[in-house]
């Protein structure tokens, strides 16, 4: 059932990709033109429309990898491992962009590109976990062992996600607390919320699109390796 749904999604991938970029273009227009400048931060606050959706997408990427890793360890389904691998490979790009955009916002606002703040450090740890995951996949040659080790690492690294979320509550940090505190408790003006929602929808759709592409890439690579192995065996005989 899931395999069939996934194949359908892969067939629809070009449309999903187009939808992602159109949503991002709409979000960009709303962020740069329609949304008002912030009273305290001025124009620089427009970067929040980029930084927050990137951060949410990075967390979504790790969560997808976490769930897929559990499914792999439980069912040993190769597709689950491929989705986890793809989510991490795509997620690391979003995580790097989150750190970059946060740094660019931090310089005019905090007068520092980087500070050893709990939220920033815990997010950087997630980036390192993703990098470690991808490195592990290149070091272990046996595909079954590689998938198993990587899945375990993804599970261990998931501990960082609640730390990221709660860091602004647990410690007194420079990073501002969450603006979304459940339904009906949103500390953002409605005209600013539209741009944030459009950018978040665009980023998450782009994540889905890139994950579908990367999964297809892993499937094709596996097919190619199998084909090459067969050719080698035929040549040896």
């Amino acid at each position, binding site marked *: 059932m899931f395999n069939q749904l996934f194949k359908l999604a892969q067939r629809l991938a070009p449309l999903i990709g187009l939808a992602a970029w159109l949503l991002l*273009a709409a979000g*960009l*227009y709303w*962020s740069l033109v329609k949304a008002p400048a912030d009273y305290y931060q001025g124009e620089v606050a*427009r970067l929040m429309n980029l930084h927050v959706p990137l951060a949410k997408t990075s967390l979504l990427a790790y969560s997808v990898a976490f769930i897929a890793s559990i499914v792999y360890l439980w069912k040993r389904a190769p597709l689950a491992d491929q989705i986890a691998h793809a989510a991490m490979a795509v997620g690391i790009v979003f995580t*790097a962009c989150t750190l970059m955009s946060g740094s660019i916002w931090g310089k005019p606002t905090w007068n520092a590109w980087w500070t050893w703040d709990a939220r920033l450090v815990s997010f950087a740890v997630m980036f390192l976990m993703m990098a470690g995951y991808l490195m592990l996949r290149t070091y272990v040659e046996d595909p079954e062992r590689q998938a198993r080790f990587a899945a375990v690492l993804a599970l261990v690294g998931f501990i960082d996600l609640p730390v990221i979320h709660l860091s602004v509550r647990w410690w007194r940090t420079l990073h501002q607390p969450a603006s979304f505190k459940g339904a009906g408790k949103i500390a953002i003006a409605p005209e600013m919320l539209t741009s944030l929602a459009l950018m978040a929808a665009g980023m998450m759709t782009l994540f889905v699109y890139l994950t579908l592409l990367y999964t297809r*890439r892993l499937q*094709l690579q596996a097919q190619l390796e199998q084909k090459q192995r067969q050719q080698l065996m035929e040549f040896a005989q």
Partner: protein
Amino acid sequence: MINWIRWGLALAALLAAVNAGWQRYQEQVAPIALSAYAQQSAGTQVRLLGRVSGGSLKAEAGALLFVLDIDGQKVPVRYTGKDGDSVRELKTMLVGGKRQADGSLAADFVGINPKYGYVAAGFGLVLCVLLLRTLTLELKLRKLEREVA
């Protein structure tokens, strides 16, 4: 062919959004240079970016008086708009209003230094990274599909 249309649509939409952002910046945010300010006729709406000179800030009935220091050149400002409490001495501010015949500015808007370069750099860098990642992944996939076939 479908891929070309897809990429064309996406890039056209992005460029249109960037262009609209640039137009808004020029119309509502960008300050003019002092040399250009000197050439403006009285009554022209302008925006200036400069530092509020130390010791120049005075409150008058319904107005704030201060001198804007722009690269050592002084422009007297009379501000009658809202949110005057954000004006501080030695603070770099964006001030908008009408140029007067004597060269002073009758301001109706004050805002903090926009530092728009950071906004452009942030959006530009991230969107370029994401576009490049999408393009390289699509090209790699097409190459693999050809090899497998």
